[in-house]
């Protein structure tokens, strides 16, 4: 390990989440509960996760819908307060700060949303949308200076400064996402939370946005938390990747390690679902089962009903995250006991299945 890496270990990372939890009360209204005799229902959307993101890096978070990855994003930017745990931005705990306490931190911490059609106020001109953070944080107060800054921001995301006069509906999905990025950059943040920023876009537009995000990261030294359900996108953009299942981080590792030597059976299942674009005729594992209802998750390891390696221990005891030599952290009894066969795929090799 190089000297720089040793030193940086003692520096505070850009972001560190520890024991982060968020529970939602999804019970029926009080009166209905009394009459129908239902118990309270608690959804453990995020159930105790730990990760760090060093400055200038990208942490990718993957998982299927309902696994809690979007809740993590919302916790970090303060849209939800955590039920437990801490979120440190360069060593300072920002979890559960009040709106006024949070104000100076928000300037350094911005978010890009999934739906380019819902994330811009349809009644506002683009220049007002992009200028909103500048005005809110009182970064500039001279109207001419704001206008120049907005123009520069639009150019930075490869839009025409004249586009500021238009309304969001005059733009395509990809252009709207650029506007969204320009707005996020307006307060000169250091950390961007990106919640599925390309999943509503066509692939060629997705490539443009991913390239833009990488360019911006290089130019401005940004740190990203990048959330997506698309494994290939996460592989492309991330330095380190975390896999979420039912509110827990089941595995995290450097991107390359995770994709070449996946440990957790769920990670392997996910990798098996990646379409075979190289047309190798690779055999795909029998992907079985569906994500259980997160309100009543299975006991023990929540993945055990879908796991081909589940034992009685898996059905009873919740696995703890276990750090491995190569930087991976895996929460799996099977991996801990060393009884899961190595290999990138769960699939038993068989004849490639193809029509015709």
């Amino acid at each position, binding site marked *: 390990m190089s000297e720089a890496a040793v030193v940086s270990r003692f520096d505070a990372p850009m972001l560190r989440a520890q024991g982060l939890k968020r529970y939602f009360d999804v019970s029926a209204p009080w009166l209905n509960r009394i009459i129908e005799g239902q118990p309270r229902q608690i959804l453990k959307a995020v159930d105790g996760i730990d990760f760090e993101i060093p400055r200038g890096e990208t942490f990718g978070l993957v998982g299927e819908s309902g696994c809690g990855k979007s809740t993590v994003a919302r916790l970090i930017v303060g*849209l939800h307060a955590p039920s437990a745990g801490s979120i440190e931005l360069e060593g300072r705990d920002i979890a559960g700060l009040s709106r006024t306490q949070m104000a100076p931190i928000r300037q350094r911490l*911005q978010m890009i949303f999934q739906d380019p059609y819902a994330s811009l106020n349809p009644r506002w001109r683009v220049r007002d949308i992009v200028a909103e*953070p500048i005005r809110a944080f009182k970064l500039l107060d001279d109207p001419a200076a704001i206008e120049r800054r907005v123009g520069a921001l639009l150019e930075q995301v490869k839009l025409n400064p004249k586009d500021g006069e238009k309304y969001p509906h005059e733009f395509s999905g990809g252009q709207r996402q650029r506007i969204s990025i320009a707005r996020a950059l307006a307060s000169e943040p250091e950390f961007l939370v990106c919640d599925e920023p390309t999943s509503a876009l066509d692939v060629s537009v997705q490539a443009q946005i991913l390239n833009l995000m990488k360019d911006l990261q290089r130019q401005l030294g940004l740190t990203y938390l990048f959330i997506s359900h698309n494994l290939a996108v996460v592989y492309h953009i991330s330095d380190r990747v975390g896999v979420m299942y039912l509110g827990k981080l089941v595995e995290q590792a450097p991107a390359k390690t995770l994709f070449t030597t996946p440990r957790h059976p769920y990670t392997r299942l996910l990798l098996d679902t990646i379409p075979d674009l190289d047309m190798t005729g690779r055999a795909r594992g029998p992907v079985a089962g569906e994500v259980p209802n997160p309100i009543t998750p299975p006991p023990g390891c929540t993945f055990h009903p879908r796991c081909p390696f589940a034992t009685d221990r898996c059905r009873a005891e919740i696995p703890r995250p276990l750090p491995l030599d190569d930087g991976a952290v895996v929460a799996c009894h099977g991996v801990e006991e060393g009884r899961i066969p190595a290999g990138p795929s769960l699939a038993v090799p068989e004849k490639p299945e193809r029509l015709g």
Partner: protein
Amino acid sequence: MAETPIQRISTEAPKVAGRFGDGLRRFFDGDIWYSFTRSPVTMVAGVVTLIYFVLALFGSWIAPHNPFDMASLNLLDSLLPPIWQEGGDARYPLGTDDQGRDMLSAIIYGSRVSLFIGFASVILAMVLGVGLGLISGFVGGTTDAIIMRIAEVQLSFPAILIALLINGIMRGVLKENVGMDVKQGDLAYTVLILSIGVSGWVQYARTVRGSTMVERGKEYVQAAYVIGIHPITIMWRHILPNVTGPVLVIATIHLAVAIITEATLSFLGVGVPPTEPSLGTLISIGNDYLLSGEWWITIFPGITLAVLVLAVNLLGDWLRDALNPKLR
């Protein structure tokens, strides 16, 4: 710093004008204007409504007489029939009432009163309903529950009953405590506007609450939170402009309802005083003479009222369809 406000004013003013012109151009270029020009019925309704507005605004110049001016009335001219009937008088094309008032002028002035009270009540109901609906949908929780329970209680009574109730209470309270008689002048207007307005806010509130709850969950609102915008500013600057579409439709249809309610209250004798008659008052006055042959006193104001309400209703219907993307 000291000169900034002046600069701001000087740069803002033309911008506002520019925005307005721009907005106007977008309106005539937009789908709403297009669908207006494609519907003959709506265009007729629009023209009719426009005529009423012109009459109401410029009535004092258009009407041949001033029916409110007691001095100009001549009891000898009372109960004259319309001009085309035997005994009609060229000075009074639609005849006169029992006081000798020119019916045509009384209708023009009466439409003005009806429209004014209708408009004022709609604005009151709108401000009240939009405000409460916005708060209800945005804040949620107990605030929402309280506002919505009040709304539901009020909705379980007919609006006219609520209006009568508020009207009665206010008249009583004002007479008891202040010693003012509501039968006179502007106070009657105020009481009417309040009672019609307060009886009509529920629809606005429910609609706005619903749209607010939808908008509140959208990502642009969350983006504003992430920037750290104050919730009240978010409510006012982000959500309000996005929930006003359906309000316009409700307001148009409510205008027709408010005019009818005013006419009903005036007909029942708890509306505007007979000295400054609205359409409802005129119908009420004429009602006494309907069976004795002087039909014109009640029929002409009645037709005027019906046409106005129909035209406004048609406009409301069209607006609802034009603003509904599903029916476009």
